[in-house]
């Protein structure tokens, strides 16, 4: 599969959507009655968090594909999906922390269930790379990583249920994800932002896949053209090969 195909078009659409989203956030969406300007963080933090969690679950689905087919390319896809989701997750966690500081005066609040669950999920998926790195046989590494990913992806919704239930009091959630109590213009801005971040995730995923598969092609070419047995000794790596 050529991952680079159509990447330029996708990148252009992504750029346009993110630009429109930013314009909507700062020039169109009204100021929130309670939070004022601070609430603008919502349009970046919540989409980042949603896309990151979606990316983890996406990685789990791809891992199912790997275990069912035994095809290592699925493992590569799953690896890149989780890799990207971790990057988005870190950005989401940092922006959430900034939001907490701005609206409640603390960098970290334990009574914001989304933030707390998010930290736990990130903690879990941060072990993905060390786990891969600790298993030397590449075939076993891929298989075990897929098992881990499936379990961890199933863990994501369960963890959210448990943490949300654990809040003794839930602070007034002006900004629920249902969008039920968001005024129309805010909801529109939010959804455009969400689509922008989703597109960004897809673009970067495809980009990384293209880069990875290009390197694999080069390696394969070297092997078949030069039947090079003296390949530079591959470093033991956490990345699928």
């Amino acid at each position: 599969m050529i991952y680079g195909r159509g990447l330029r078009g996708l990148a252009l659409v992504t750029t346009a959507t993110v630009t429109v989203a930013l314009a909507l956030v700062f020039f169109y969406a009204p100021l929130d009655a309670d939070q004022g300007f601070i609430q603008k963080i919502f349009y970046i933090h919540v989409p980042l968090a949603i896309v990151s969690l979606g990316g983890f679950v996406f990685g789990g689905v791809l891992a199912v594909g790997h275990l069912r087919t035994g095809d290592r390319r699925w493992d590569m896809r799953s690896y890149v999906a989780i890799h990207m989701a971790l990057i988005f997750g870190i950005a989401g966690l940092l922006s959430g922390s900034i939001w907490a500081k701005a609206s409640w005066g603390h960098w970290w609040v334990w009574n914001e269930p989304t933030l707390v669950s998010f930290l736990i999920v990130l903690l879990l998926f941060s072990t993905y790379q060390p786990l891969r790195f600790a298993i030397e046989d590449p075939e076993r590494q891929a298989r075990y990583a897929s098992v881990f990913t499936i379990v961890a992806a199933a863990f994501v919704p369960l963890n959210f249920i448990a943490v949300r239930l654990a809040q003794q009091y839930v602070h007034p959630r002006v900004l629920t994800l249902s969008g039920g109590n968001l005024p129309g213009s805010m909801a529109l801005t939010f959804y455009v932002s969400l689509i922008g971040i989703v597109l960004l995730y897809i673009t970067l995923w495809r980009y990384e896949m293209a880069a990875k598969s290009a390197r694999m092609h080069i390696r394969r070419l070297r092997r078949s053209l030069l039947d090079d047995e003296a390949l530079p000794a591959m470093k033991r790596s956490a990345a699928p090969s």
Partner: protein
Amino acid sequence: MTGWLAAAPALPLHSAGKYVAGAYIVFVAVVLIYVSIMARRLSATQRELARLQREIEARHSERDEQPEIETAA
């Protein structure tokens, strides 16, 4: 553009603006760091490709030289 700015709510540059800017800067910075890492990997790929090309060319010139030696002998 000026019309847009006039329509926009006055950008509050007190504490609130700082935090909002911070959140968006975090997002842009993370994306940029990622892109720079990818750029480094791209140059590594390029080096690998160049090395492969050099090696293939070296083999070809070896192969071109060899028949001459045989006919001479």
